[in-house]
């Protein structure tokens, strides 16, 4: 037992460090947390100095915590306001809400948003749920009774009008922009738009159609079948077997969907422009002459209430028709783990196949039948036929160590855990918070939430 624990500590310290690029999309969240902790440190520097008996009498310059305190305190004194509702354990100080953004939304920079291909995926034939199909074609079919429409909270566009126009041009270049007469677009139901960090070069564009989503039926039947890395904890790996990993990721999956004009009109964005601005663009039609128009995103937008459902539903139907994703191999929430040597996972655009092979077998060996190769080849042929593209950069083949759907899987050792580099970063941020000794609720929630994720991917401690 002790030897096992020691070896795990050694393994953790050997494998967890790495360049920040290893954090992948978590870089944004970690940076956000780090900056919030720095603000917190500055805001509470004086307070801690007062309370910490060991610090009294020491020069503020000699305390590493306070090295930046002079400037930080000065800077933060503007940002930190007196608490209005400090409770029993409150300090009377508060952090401005913009310091820690819970939704990770960032200002939209059109140069960081990339669209390479026009939508080419006609998904209707893969939508077997009649209501979902009707709603996808004309979202009005999913609208709730008027009595149930919530009070509208306007959505915001997180960029300037010039930047929005620049983004519209990018959409137009890939035939994903449609114009709508502004008189046909109800202002309070127009969508906002923002970005989230994806990698050092790119951001991910997210539409904010909360007002439209609020008055729509919630569709979640296929969403319940989403696979997650934590479900891998239930797999039993026999002594004489290893687990080989294969995975594909569909490139820009949502933006491959061809949608009807009625669907596109649901994605109407705040910002009214004279139609003449768009003369010469591919979205221009003569009937718009002299009108005021709003831009509509003419493909499946991230943020649409039923987007996950549509994406998961169509992807699963597509794979089933290609001979993949058999129920007896598909790992899903609320379903028992499949028997057998092959496991398939599907999470929107990520498709993973795990296959048990004889222990010690070289990764690329074809000595034994390789169901994972057959399934991934079938899937890729099906993608090509319908106008979808799987990312070659993110494709995983014949690997025994890879991060799959949020879980880091070591198919030789038989271990599943949260990605170690993220755990290490989380430890550092947590220790920083403990060192400061103060927190705000959102900050603590974000840290504890991240730890709960780590706990998710660790079923046993032995």
């Amino acid at each position, binding site marked *: 037992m002790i030897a096992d624990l020691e070896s795990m500590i050694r393994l953790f310290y050997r494998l967890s460090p790495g360049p920040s690029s290893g954090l992948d999309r978590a870089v944004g969240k970690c940076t956000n947390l780090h900056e919030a902790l720095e603000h917190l440190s500055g805001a509470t520097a004086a307070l801690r100095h007062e309370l910490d008996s060991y610090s009294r009498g020491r020069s503020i310059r000699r305390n590493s915590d306070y090295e930046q305190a002079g400037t930080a305190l000065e800077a933060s004194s503007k940002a930190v306001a007196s608490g209005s509702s400090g*409770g029993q354990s*409150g300090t009377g100080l508060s952090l401005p809400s913009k310091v820690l953004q819970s939704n990770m939304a960032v200002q939209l920079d059109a140069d960081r948003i990339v669209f390479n291909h026009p939508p080419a995926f006609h998904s209707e034939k893969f939508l077997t749920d009649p209501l979902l199909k009707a709603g996808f074609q004309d979202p009005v079919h999913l609208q709730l009774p008027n009595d149930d429409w919530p009070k509208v909270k306007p959505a915001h566009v997180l960029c300037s009008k010039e930047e929005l126009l620049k983004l519209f041009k990018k959409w137009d270049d890939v035939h994903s922009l449609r114009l709508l007469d502004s008189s046909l677009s109800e202002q309070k139901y127009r969508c906002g738009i923002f970005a989230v960090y994806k990698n050092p070069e790119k951001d991910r564009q997210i539409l904010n159609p909360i007002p439209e989503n609020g008055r729509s039926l919630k569709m979640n039947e296929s969403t319940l079948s989403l696979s997650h890395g934590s479900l891998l904890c239930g797999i039993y790996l026999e002594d004489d077997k290893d687990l080989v990993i294969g995975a594909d990721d569909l490139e820009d999956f949502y933006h491959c969907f061809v949608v009807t004009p009625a669907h596109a009109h649901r994605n109407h964005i705040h910002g009214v422009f004279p139609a003449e601005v768009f003369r010469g663009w591919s979205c221009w039609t003569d009937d718009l002459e002299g009108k005021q128009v709003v831009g509509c995103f003419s493909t499946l937008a991230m943020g649409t209430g039923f987007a996950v459902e549509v994406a998961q539903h169509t992807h699963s139907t597509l794979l089933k028709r290609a001979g993949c994703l058999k129920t007896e191999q598909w790992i899903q929430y609320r379903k*028992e783990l499949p028997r057998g040597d092959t496991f398939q996972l599907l999470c929107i655009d990520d498709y993973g196949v795990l296959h048990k092979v004889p222990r010690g077998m070289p990764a690329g060996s074809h000595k034994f039948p390789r169901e994972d190769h057959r399934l991934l080849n079938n899937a890729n042929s099906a993608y090509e036929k319908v106008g979808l593209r799987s990312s070659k950069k993110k494709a995983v083949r014949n690997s025994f160590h890879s991060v799959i759907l949020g879980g880091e899987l070591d198919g030789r050792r038989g271990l599943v855990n949260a990605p170690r580099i993220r755990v*290490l970063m989380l430890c550092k941020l947590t220790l920083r918070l403990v060192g400061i000794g103060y927190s705000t609720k959102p900050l603590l929630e974000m840290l504890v939430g991240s730890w709960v994720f780590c706990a998710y991917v660790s079923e046993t401690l032995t």
Partner: protein
Amino acid sequence: MFRRPLLSLLSDVFHEGEQCGRKDIFQLSTGCKQELLMLCIFAPFAYSNLRAEPLDKIFCSDASLAGSGVCVAEINKKVCLELCRVAEQRGTYTRIDNSALRAFQALHGDDIVGPCHIPQSLSDGFVWDFCEIFRGTGRLSAAHQSRGCRVHLGFDIADGARGDVLLPSTFSAIIGLLCRRVVRAWHVAPVCTTFGTLKRPQVRSKLEPFGFDPSEPATYKGNQFAMRGGFILYLCLYYNLVVSIEQPGSSIMFRLDIYKRLLARGLVSIKFPFCSWGTPFEKMSWWLGNNPLFAKLSGQCQCGFKRDHFRVRGVFDESRRTKFIALCRPSVEAVFGRAPRLNEHVAKFATGYPIPLCDKVADLNCIHFQNHDSENDDIARPFSSPARWIGQLGRSLRWKNCCNMNFTVQITSTSTRICHIAVC
């Protein structure tokens, strides 16, 4: 959040800053700081070992306010693995069933009834109470709405693409709403132009209701409307929804085979004249439905104008308009919502159901909803039910008592927690 031992490290963090606002900075308690430090210390061990050998033991524990206990039994390792495989995943809905039937089943160790065979909606429940297909004037929808029912916008050819039942997306929406059981009651009034006996030239007869030439465009379209109406009725019967369908008394649509078979499934068939509901003209109406209360609507003309009904033809001139208004009972507004305009087509004005009839239908539907509400209480979401072999396996094992204890202390939130720790 299930079988995740690391979560046992966390307790105080969930109560930090309870009295503070979202932006307020508060001091972390010692307990919270220790828990966060423990998380960092345990971080290298936050993994799952897929090669971990299963135990050859199985444990069973239970606790109530009065006591708790843990039992253990020897078991084959392969069986242990299989039990782990089929163990409940997050999100299954469980509840304690206190009914007499369940108690009987528990005593006898077996189920005596099979699961409900009708597919049920997962979680939506009834979002709307009523929806009209081929809505027309929408008076029936308005009557339901005035009684507090939540009414779907409905579908009508006049709405354009979104109401055209022959369009795949619209009909898909209707099927989807039916199959999800989000609408409690439906009313269908298919377009019947080619099914009327007054249609010239005749394209169908009582003996050949499907048409002399079913491929002729008008006949084909009429048949499409009729078949889609019948299909909707079948779905409503299958999904246990309230449904009614209406045609003029002279229509031969219900002589189609699909409707004959629907009638054989026990639908109520009723005929009555509109003059019984205050109109000056007779106009017979034929309804099929599965609300048995609709039988009360059936009747003959008793308006007293047996051979002197207002004739539905031409337009309203001054004298015909005056006569029409005078013959409406109790008043033209009460029956049609407004008076006819000069030169308005009589047939067009007479389209739509009389308002008193709509009120009566809405009343009967509401009574039916109340009578059958209790049937729908428990069917929104399936309950967790483990495979039968798990219960049989459990009963076949030799269980040994590991520990049991009675809770004699006063149950408060604090004492409950202490007892729980003691058992663990």
